[in-house]
């Protein structure tokens, strides 16, 4: 059997492992094994790549020099990746994933650029136009560049770097995007029809980089789960496109698996917010008239102290905690568990209601609460827990706003009308822990805060929960 056939068999084995890995990732018990199998597939694919014809052919002329260089580069990358993954705090996972994703996209774009340079240097005549190689190279460069810079901007936003804190809402941004899109199309055409003009490829990468920035900058914090999924999908598609550049099926298979998974998660996230993908990408939120904050809140907001809330909690038999991004910002997950322990000691049942888009990445709240050793079974999904709110004595909302806004259900004029929400307003008492009455990402007032059964507790999330726990234990 030729060695190339063996290499292809190894790629096939790796591809099958990736598919099984994805399959196992769908169950909580099998997910760890899935991750191991994915890593095993990657090791097999990488070893097979080291046996590829062009790599082995160079062994005879440069000794094992090329393998040494490859090993050094791989070791540098592995050490950086492992250190980043182990050192980064668990609460920073969304930005960590965004950053890693960007590196993958960059690698794909660089591979295509290097292949193009090699091909153009080797050819005596200009490279033929509109070949698979030329077209795939153009797309790899574009998608890779968009992934890299989109991920960097997403990282900066999630890290809350001051410059990126506010969504970019320059009224001219649609024109800027349009101009960049036109330049992109022109350059794709240029690379496909004149692949030997290498400068065009790098211009395309630069324009793609700008596009990655301008497309991500207007997107607000609450839409980050969608953006992370989408960028994840792009990095897969970039790898698949690179597979078309070098005629490699394992790149195509693994890349399209990732592309598909990212697209599905994007669709799920959009659905959870009742928004269209185009709305998230281009619109910001619509400009439908929202109720005036003063009318909604005037004289109706009841502020309570830790002692008063502790008294309400003392009589509660069923408590549901609703975490939002504010919980992640305040790093209050351990404090929340203490509170839940104190409540459970008094005989109450405590559960957690997780909205699909709470937090800054898909499933963010689950990871955060799991870090504080909160048992997995207590984290309940929206559709599962919503029917139980009428039997709930106290719902404690910590750092969540738009996902518990009853206006989504009651006010057809509201910008978030129709968005599925957690029906906390149906609980007997609602305690909202919040720093102020400032609106959430949607920028609209929340009638929940003025409801008869709502007590507002104005404080930083972590301090509030600690004070509450202390008051409960004193009482």
């Amino acid at each position: 059997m030729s060695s190339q056939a063996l290499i292809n068999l190894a790629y096939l084995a790796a591809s099958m492992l990736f598919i099984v890995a994805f399959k196992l990732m769908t169950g909580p018990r099998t997910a760890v094994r899935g991750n191991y199998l994915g890593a095993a597939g990657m090791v097999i694919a990488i070893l097979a790549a080291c046996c590829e014809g062009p790599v082995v052919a160079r062994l005879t002329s440069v000794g094992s020099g090329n393998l040494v260089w490859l090993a050094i580069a791989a070791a540098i990358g592995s050490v950086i990746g492992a250190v980043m993954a182990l050192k980064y705090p668990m609460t920073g996972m969304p930005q960590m994933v965004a950053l890693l994703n960007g590196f993958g996209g960059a690698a794909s774009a660089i591979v295509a650029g290097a292949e193009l340079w090699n091909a153009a240097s080797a050819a005596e005549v200009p490279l033929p136009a509109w070949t698979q190689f030329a077209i795939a190279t153009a797309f790899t460069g574009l998608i890779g560049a968009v992934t890299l810079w989109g991920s960097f901007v997403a990282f900066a936003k999630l890290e809350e770097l001051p410059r990126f804190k506010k969504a970019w809402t320059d009224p001219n941004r649609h024109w800027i995007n349009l101009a960049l899109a036109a330049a992109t199309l022109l350059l794709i055409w240029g690379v496909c029809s004149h692949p030997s003009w290498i400068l065009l490829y790098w211009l395309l990468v630069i324009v793609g980089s700008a596009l990655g920035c301008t497309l991500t900058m207007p997107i607000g914090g609450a839409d980050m789960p969608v953006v992370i999924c989408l960028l994840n999908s792009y990095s897969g598609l970039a790898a698949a496109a690179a597979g078309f550049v070098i005629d490699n099926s394992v790149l195509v298979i693994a890349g399209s698996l990732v592309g598909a998974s990212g697209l599905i998660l994007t669709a799920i996230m959009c659905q959870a917010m009742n928004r269209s993908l185009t709305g998230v990408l281009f619109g910001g939120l619509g400009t439908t008239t929202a109720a005036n904050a003063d009318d909604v809140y005037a004289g109706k907001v009841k502020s309570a102290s830790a002692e008063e809330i502790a008294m309400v909690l003392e009589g509660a038999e069923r408590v549901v905690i609703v975490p939002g991004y504010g919980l992640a910002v305040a790093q209050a997950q351990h404090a929340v568990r203490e509170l839940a322990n104190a409540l459970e000691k008094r005989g109450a049942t405590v559960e957690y209601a997780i909205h699909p888009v709470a937090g800054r990445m898909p499933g963010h709240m689950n990871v955060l609460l799991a870090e504080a050793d909160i048992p997995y079974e207590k984290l309940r999904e929206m559709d599962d827990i919503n029917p139980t709110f009428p039997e709930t004595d106290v719902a404690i909302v910590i750092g969540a706003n738009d996902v518990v806004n009853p206006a989504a259900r009651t006010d057809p004029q509201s910008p978030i009308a129709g968005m599925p929400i957690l029906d906390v307003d149906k609980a007997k008492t609602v305690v909202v822990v919040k720093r102020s009455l400032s609106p959430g990402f949607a920028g609209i007032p929340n009638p929940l805060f003025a409801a008869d059964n709502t007590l507002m507790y104005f404080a930083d999330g972590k301090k509030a929960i600690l004070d509450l726990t202390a008051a409960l234990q004193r009482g």
Partner: protein
Amino acid sequence: MPSPLLPVLLADAVLPEDPATRFIRLLTVFLLAMWVGFEVITKVPQRLHTPLTSGSNAISGITAVGAIVVAGAMATRLGTLLGLLAVVLAMINVVGGFVVTHRMLEMFNPKKK
């Protein structure tokens, strides 16, 4: 003893393929893999969305294979340097992705603590 058919099959496999056939072969692989991806991922529960995102993120580092081939061939100085840079970046993605996913999944697993 290997089947007498085997050499024939393999000989066929190394025959040069015309560009259109090659493209359609890869396109077939691409579309079928997308399909498999859609079918498998649709069933993921919400609580596993974060590990799934980071796990698939690690797999997108498969571009390391392309980086190794282009860097290892050492065809041109610039091509090799770019290839080595791509190896570094792709390996950050691969190793970082799998390790982060493992850390997250460990937290879901109370037995280990």
